[in-house]
């Protein structure tokens, strides 16, 4: 079972396509950051060496990550299964530590300062650890993932860091943990859960769009029509009428109590405002309990959709062919806030237009499908679950990040994998990818 003949040659068995895509994406990222930071009045080659600009820093991060990647490829793949539980524990401890040691960056206290002016965001690293422990849990021989008990345990593993993230005011990072649904679904999570989740999402959106009373009436009518049209069936089976009424009651409860609770008590004021502004409504912040308790938060002050507006202008102004390398006026004029981190996609969209964005998305899609292919060729459940976790995390980041820059999703602070500026984020995705490559190289083994 632990027969590993290829251990010495790390390049043997590693998936070359993924490596190429990885480096291509990191290069695109550096290019995008360069476009954002570029100033014609400053000699860029000088500042590159000085390492004062974001793009030069990102280059150093990338070199560092390259070494980390090589290091991971040189490791024994059994290490990952062995360390899964411990690392998860360490991750949770680190996250708890932020409440004590945390440094406030951009309004969220999720960073731990470490030596040399670098900051560590444990929540980022926790994604990796959660992926590993989830893989470990599901791949255990005694786990039967058809059982609800297993689902609940897996859910708990995922929910713990997510809840901690919410407590750190990192809604975006918390949402990322829902990406593990892919892996769980692949391993036997009943699709009903996905359907319920989807229905819930539809119901939330409907609640936001329509008047609650109107929606309640519509739901009641639907339920009534259902009951009348299925009278014969109900005569045979008494329970089914109860199911319909039960579903109706749950929906009604969601509209009346759950959705307002989420917006007023779970979300911060600015988050609720962003979501409301997506559908062109205004959110009354005085209802928000959370921001009322944590008064003085800066987010509450800027409820307008300036970011998204400028971001859409930048992408839209690219047109079909783009405005050309370094010629984007939105980027040059620094109109898009946070452009080298969360809104990095805008510099690409403006400079290279639809051609650029479409090919970039094509590249990502190819990358994701490639990892799915890798996942499906694993003999080991551990590797497969891990691979699907990687797919889920990447997909979630990409979809949410790009959607928010083009106005399809409320603004949440989620970086674009491998592209956005930031050492923590780049390191996390590097580790995620290279652990996968390491596991894939040993795909003949069955790891537990």
């Amino acid at each position: 079972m632990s027969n590993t003949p290829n251990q010495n040659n790390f390049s043997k068995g590693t998936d070359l396509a993924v490596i190429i895509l990885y480096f291509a994406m990191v290069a695109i990222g550096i290019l995008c950051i360069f476009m954002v930071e570029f100033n014609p009045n400053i000699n860029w080659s000088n500042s590159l060496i000085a390492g004062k600009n974001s793009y030069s820093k990102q280059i150093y991060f990338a070199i560092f990550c390259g070494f980390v990647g090589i290091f991971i490829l040189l490791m024994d793949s059994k290490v990952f299964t062995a360390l899964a539980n411990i690392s998860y524990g360490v991750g949770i401890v680190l996250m708890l530590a932020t409440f004590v040691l945390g440094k406030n960056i951009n309004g969220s206290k999720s960073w731990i300062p470490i030596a040399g002016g670098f900051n560590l965001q444990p929540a980022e690293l926790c994604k990796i650890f959660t992926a590993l422990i989830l893989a470990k849990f599901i791949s255990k021989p005694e786990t039967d993932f058809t059982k609800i008990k297993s689902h609940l345990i897996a859910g708990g593993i995922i929910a713990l860091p997510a809840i901690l993230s919410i407590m750190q005011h990192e809604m975006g990072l918390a949402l990322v943990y829902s990406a593990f649904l892919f892996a769980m679904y692949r391993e036997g999570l009943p699709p009903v859960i996905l359907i319920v989740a989807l229905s819930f999402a539809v119901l939330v959106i409907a609640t936001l769009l329509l008047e609650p009373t109107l929606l309640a009436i519509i739901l009641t009518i639907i339920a009534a029509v259902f009951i009348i049209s299925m009278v014969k069936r109900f005569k045979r089976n008494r329970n089914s009428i109860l199911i319909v009424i039960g579903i109706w009651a749950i929906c009604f409860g969601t509209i009346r109590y759950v959705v307002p609770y989420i917006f007023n008590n779970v979300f911060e004021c600015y988050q609720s405002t962003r979501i409301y502004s997506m559908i062109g409504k205004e959110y009354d912040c005085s209802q928000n309990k959370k921001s009322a308790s944590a008064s003085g938060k800066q987010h509450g002050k800027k409820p307008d959709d300036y970011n998204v507006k400028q971001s859409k202008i930048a992408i839209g102004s690219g047109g079909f062919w783009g405005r050309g390398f370094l010629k984007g006026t939105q980027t040059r004029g620094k109109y898009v806030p946070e452009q080298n981190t969360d809104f990095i996609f805008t510099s690409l969209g403006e400079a290279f237009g639809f051609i650029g964005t479409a090919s970039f998305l094509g590249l990502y899609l190819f990358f994701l499908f490639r990892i799915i292919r890798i996942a499906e060729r694993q003999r080991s459940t551990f590797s497969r679950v891990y691979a699907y976790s990687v797919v889920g995390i990447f997909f979630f980041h990409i979809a949410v990040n790009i959607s928010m820059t083009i106005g399809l999703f409320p603004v949440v602070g989620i970086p674009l994998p491998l592209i956005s500026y930031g050492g923590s984020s780049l390191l996390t995705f590097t580790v995620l990818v290279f652990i996968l490559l390491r596991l894939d190289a040993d795909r003949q083994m069955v790891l537990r």
Partner: protein
Amino acid sequence: MALYNSNRGGIIQIIIGFVFVIIIGQLISLQIFSNKYKLAADNNAIFRKIIYPDRGIIYDRKRRALLENSISYDLVVIPNEAKGVDTIALCNILRIDKDEFTKRMIEVIVKNSRVKAGIFEPFLSPELYAQLTENLYRFPGFSLSERSIRTYPYNTAAHVLGYVAEVDVNFLQKHEDEGYEMGDYAGMTGLEKQYENVLMGQRGVKRFLRDNKGKIQGAFEKGQFDTLAVAGRNLYTSMDVDVQQLAEKLLQHKIGSAVVINPKTGGVIAMASSPGYNPNLLTGNQRRRTIGSLLTDTARPIYNRAIKGQYPPGSTFKPMGALIALDEGLISPSFGYNCFGLYTSCGDPRKCEHHNAGHAANLQLALANSCNSYFLQVFRMAIDNPKYHNAKQGYLKWKEYVNSFGLGRKLGIDLPSENKASIPDTAQYNKDFGNPKYWNSCYMLTLGIGQDRMTATPLQLANAMALIANEGFYYTPHFVDSLEDEDEDDKAILAKFRTKQEVTKISGDIFKIIKEGMHDVTVYGTAAGIKVPGHEYCAKTGTAQNPHGKNHSLFVCFAPKDNPKVAVAVVVENAGFGATWAGPIGGLLMEKYLNDTLTAESKTKTEYLANVDLMPQSIKDWYVRNNKSERLTPIEYNNDELGDVWDMEMVSENNAKPQKPKDTIQKAVDSSFKKTSSIPPTNNSNTVKKDSAALINKKKKKTINTKNVQHT
């Protein structure tokens, strides 16, 4: 277990693909099907600075500039950048209060948005400019912007030149694609409006890149999209500043108008309308103060009477009536009418100022003495011309003639909003008299002496003189002879001013007869007292009844008699007899143009005429009522006595009212008609032929002579 779920990988792929398709869909809508983002990005980041070119200059025929450009400064503000302004200091300098400051700021924002520069205070005085330049550092967001404004060194020709003013919303809607923006200036009236495209030049645009804080980062794309300002082109007009100034001087304290045309080119030498205004009053910061009072003035100083004023031509129409009758062969030059001071053929008698027998014994005499009876008779003969079966057809033919003389239609001068005045339509008479079957020349009898519903503008009258002077053609009256750097398009526009308008087929000989008659007017006729030193000239006086009070004084003329170089029409409203007021003005204008100077005697006459006040009493009263007595002239002149004496030329009462003639009179008219038309037409045409043949011979000789001269 794993195998059991292996299809789920595919489902996950489908989900991922689906989300990507949604994203791509949104990208397509943003990047391909929506232009607004590109515009929004440009609005964000590209700062367009407009470079205003100098407007073209307008010159007179001797290349003297009628107007010039000078520099003025505006205080402009970009509201978004106006933060931390020392408001109190600024208010003190501009002498405004805080409320006014806020009000203006809001105005600027409404007009030009927050990020564009808008005018806060236009046309700074030199002192204000100096004060502001010193203190500008205290007012971030404010800057001084240069603007070129018009000045008029000769203080003249305000109506012709027109004025420039800030464009309004209506203007912008009308000229949507011509690149005007709020705050731009454009020609609003006169030549400034007519030749706006030429005078305006091309504005240049410099583009700068601006960051999110509104700071300029440098030229956009290295200035490759910048355009240079191209200066407006100059207009070279046929005007003569001296004649123009004289005309305005002569018309001061009067209501009226004078038009001087060069018949050889159609170029307008002078066009005055009184009361007028000093064009310098409508430039720069003067404008705000004066425009209101000019617009509300009851004497309408902004109104250009030369092209818009509609006056009954009165007796000045008589030469044209004679032209029609001669051309139709209804009369010969020897045709006479036995006038005893009344015209009685149409019932109510119409008075004629002369009683002595034989004052209308032939056409020349009738013209010289301006015999009403004679021309009423001639008019009736034209309407009742047996060639055209009935009076309506006769009238239509007559109208055709009159229109061909340039009356009752727009001439197409290069000024906006020219009026076509009126030669009444048959429809109007149908309405008055019912069925055209019962039409009768007596209905509109006084049309024959330029009354009834006939009106003409001074420009039309001057042009008609040019037509007679040229013996059958004219050039469309115009100001602009040529443009600076004329291109093909300009030539096409100016072509209509450079082509001969041969609107009538009346032969030159007939014109010669009329010219002789009009010459007699100046020798022993109504204008005998008016002389142009060194020149024989032709003229016709007119004293037109009108519903607004005293008779209008009219005078039309051209000179020299042979080889005419100038044609003039003068109207002085409610002044009385034509030869008394309009006549001398016309004479002086011809003298000035032809001789370039005035004799000492003429100069005294000029001073006298310039100081005569002929303003109607109602207007004077209005000035007193509205506390504008400063408009009243210091020299009061009582013209009532003189006016009454000379109101004799046309004294028929209620001439506009239709009167049906009695049967007996109708018969008398018919018989007299037969008599006149019994003159053998063949005879007439023969003489004409002989005359013209002689003329051609003369011409030939002349040309030979000149050739010889050239050879030697």
